[in-house]
């Protein structure tokens, strides 16, 4: 009953794949690139992006980077290797431990949430540095792996895992992503396992967020896509506290989804009244 009145967002996975593959190709074409780099964690999001990238430009033009830290779960790496093997794409392993240890020593390892988040942010941002460096060496664009559920809830590190040149799955809820991943042939183990940022041992998204993605996606879909009020969400049986919490997170994390505000002092300001598409005549590399 509740499920029917507050459905999960449905999509046609086949059409979504067609749209995203065309999007990746066209972004590369319009920027003058042919290759894609993806940070591969072993989770469903980055696996899906790797599958989409390979479908768009072929395995030889996709480089996936595995970037473990010393506490990263070995299962994550096993799953990442499963993807590499299935796709036959280029793959590199770069251990970020020696790169981040001096900074983590500075932060310390107190067992409180704020410290854990700060340490997690360092890992995410170091991976961004490696990704962007390898993208320059491989002559490729960085494909982001953030999904819509994360973006709305602000569950990501600014200039870390949120950094990318293109965001192929940025408009797909986690629950939709699973059906897209299934249609793409992503290994079932990867789709089924509990999502985790793997920033500290035992971390899971749903443990940290305090709710399942299915429940959160129902709420986000209602609040955002269908423009329902909190009251209407509650009337359909959604948990009032969770609705309020999600709505607050969406609002509080608006800053993460937008460019920083520029103090306007001139007649014409980029992003305010100097408005152009990113890809336009002259923007293509080598043009």
């Amino acid at each position: 009953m509740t499920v029917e009145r507050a459905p999960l967002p449905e999509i046609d996975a086949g059409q979504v794949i067609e749209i995203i593959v065309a999007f990746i190709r066209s972004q590369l074409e319009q920027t003058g690139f042919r290759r894609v780099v993806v940070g591969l964690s072993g989770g469903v999001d980055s696996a899906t992006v790797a599958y989409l990238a390979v479908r768009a430009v072929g395995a030889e033009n996709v480089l996936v980077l595995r970037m473990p830290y010393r506490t990263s779960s070995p299962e994550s790496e096993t799953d990442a290797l499963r993807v590499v093997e299935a796709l036959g794409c280029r793959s590199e392993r770069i251990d970020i431990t020696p790169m981040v240890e001096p900074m983590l020593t500075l932060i310390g390892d107190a067992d409180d949430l704020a410290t854990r988040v700060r340490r997690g942010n360092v890992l995410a941002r170091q991976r961004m540095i490696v990704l962007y460096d390898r993208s320059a060496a491989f002559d490729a664009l960085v494909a982001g792996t953030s999904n819509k559920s994360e973006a709305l809830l602000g569950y990501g590190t600014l200039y870390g895992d949120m950094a990318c040149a293109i965001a192929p799955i940025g408009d797909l809820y986690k629950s939709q992503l699973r059906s897209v991943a299934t249609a793409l042939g992503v290994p079932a183990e990867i789709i089924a396992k509990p999502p985790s940022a793997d920033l500290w041992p035992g971390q899971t998204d749903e443990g940290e967020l305090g709710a399942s993605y299915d429940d959160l996606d129902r709420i986000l879909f209602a609040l955002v896509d269908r423009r329902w009020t909190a009251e209407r969400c509650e009337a359909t049986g959604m948990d009032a506290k969770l609705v309020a919490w999600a709505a607050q997170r969406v609002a509080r994390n608006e800053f993460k989804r937008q460019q920083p505000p520029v103090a306007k002092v001139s007649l014409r300001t980029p992003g305010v009244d100097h408005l152009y598409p990113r890809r336009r005549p002259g923007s293509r590399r080598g043009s």
Partner: protein
Amino acid sequence: MEYRIALAQFAPRLGEVDDNVELARGWLRRGVAQGAQLTVFPELALTGYLLSDLVPEVAMRADDARLAALSREAPGMLVAVGFVEETEEHRFCNSAALLRDGELIGLHRKVYLPTYGMFDEGRFTRRGNRIRAEAVGEPLGRIGLSICEDFWHASLPMLQAQDGAQLLVNLAAGPARAPGSSAGLAAIAGWHKMQDTYALLGTVAVAFCNRVGNEEGLTFWGGSRLLGADGSTIAEAPLYEEALVVGAIETDDLRMQRYSLPLLADERLELVRRELDRIIAERAGLPEPNPEDQA
């Protein structure tokens, strides 16, 4: 009499007018090869859609030599093509030119510029102020041009049908949203319902040409269609892929459809006008027009 129409559902390059003229020329040649008497291109076919501040850079006058040259590529053929028009007084409009042998024989400026949700057209272009059917000669007599969102306002195609159009031509740049959900179906299926309805109620043929390709994060869905004056589907293009589809409408069918179903002739235009005048007056807070004056 058969009248062959080609729908050139291609992917323009954003801001690259010369490239797009060249691409359009290629599609036009294919239309010629297939015996088309009219080729329809999408909205803003010569410029791309998400222009923002590129508008003044890509704008051209309706008598621009590039438009004329494009049309001369297909001798005797009617060509409907979307572009950014700069008027004499430097108004920038999302326009559709109707050309034959290098002559501009019709022009429509998009009347309804969507400026809501994902659309921001009214910010960069100015709206047109004219709804007409354009005279094109036999066998069609007149055709009604419109651009994408114009079709979401039933008054526009119905006025064109009343103005003598036997064919409605809609040039579109429709972006895909939520494919597979009910909202996504509403987007594509909604377009279908609307086209079917106009054909049926206007007893008029409908040619809809929607672009494909990607700009920024948008993917345009294509699915161009040609409908007979009874609402039957004559030709339909695939979703998302470039294609030229050609189909023939039969003007004899349209003639008999209008005899069997004299909806246009029976329309009470004077009554429509009187009630419109009343509604307009009420909305503006003016005294109601005296019906005696208008009867």
